[in-house]
């Protein structure tokens, strides 16, 4: 088996794993914050979105590069 397939698989798998853990922690903290302080909903939503974007950027890019490696483009 070609090593690039394994490399692409590892990139996609770890990217998705990291995104799953990060998103889970963030969503739980976000809901907890809203439950504690419902009036801060607007501020919390904006900040949660920025943090979620930061958490998701790396896995999304790693998945894109993993697919490119998998297809043998890179």
């Amino acid at each position: 088996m070609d090593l690039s397939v394994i490399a692409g698989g590892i990139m996609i798998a770890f990217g998705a794993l990291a995104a799953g853990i990060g998103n889970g922690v963030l969503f739980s903290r976000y809901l907890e914050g809203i439950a504690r302080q419902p009036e801060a909903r607007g501020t919390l939503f904006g900040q949660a979105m920025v943090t979620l974007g930061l958490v998701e950027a790396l896995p999304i890019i790693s998945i894109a590069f993993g697919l490119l490696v998998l297809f043998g483009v890179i």
Partner: protein
Amino acid sequence: MDEWAWYRRFILILSCAFYGASLLLWLFTPLKSFAAGFILGGLISLYNILYLARRVRIIHEQAAWAVPRRAGSGFVNRVLMVAFGVILAYRFPEQIDYRGLAPGLALGYILMVIAACRYNKKERLPREGREILGNHSEN
């Protein structure tokens, strides 16, 4: 207007500026495939961000109303959109360059961080001004 509405407007305006610049690049330079990849990646990234915001709002509403069956964050949908872009770049390498697609995929997230910095700066300056004025009035 709440914070996210401001972010969304800022991101949409800046994204449109980037797409316009990429369109000019596509029209008037030989970097057609790079510009096409960048536009495709940027559109996917914008979709991902707006979809994420919608899903977070749905989850929030469901948590507030204690709905028993919770919605997911739509991660698979976003990953499939990225895979769609990569497959398009793989299928049509002459028209869409993957070297443009990769930075395009990060565009929306980078714009979101820029929007957050800008919003914090915009919000912090009047607050500091009020504090300074408050101190003067006390003295």
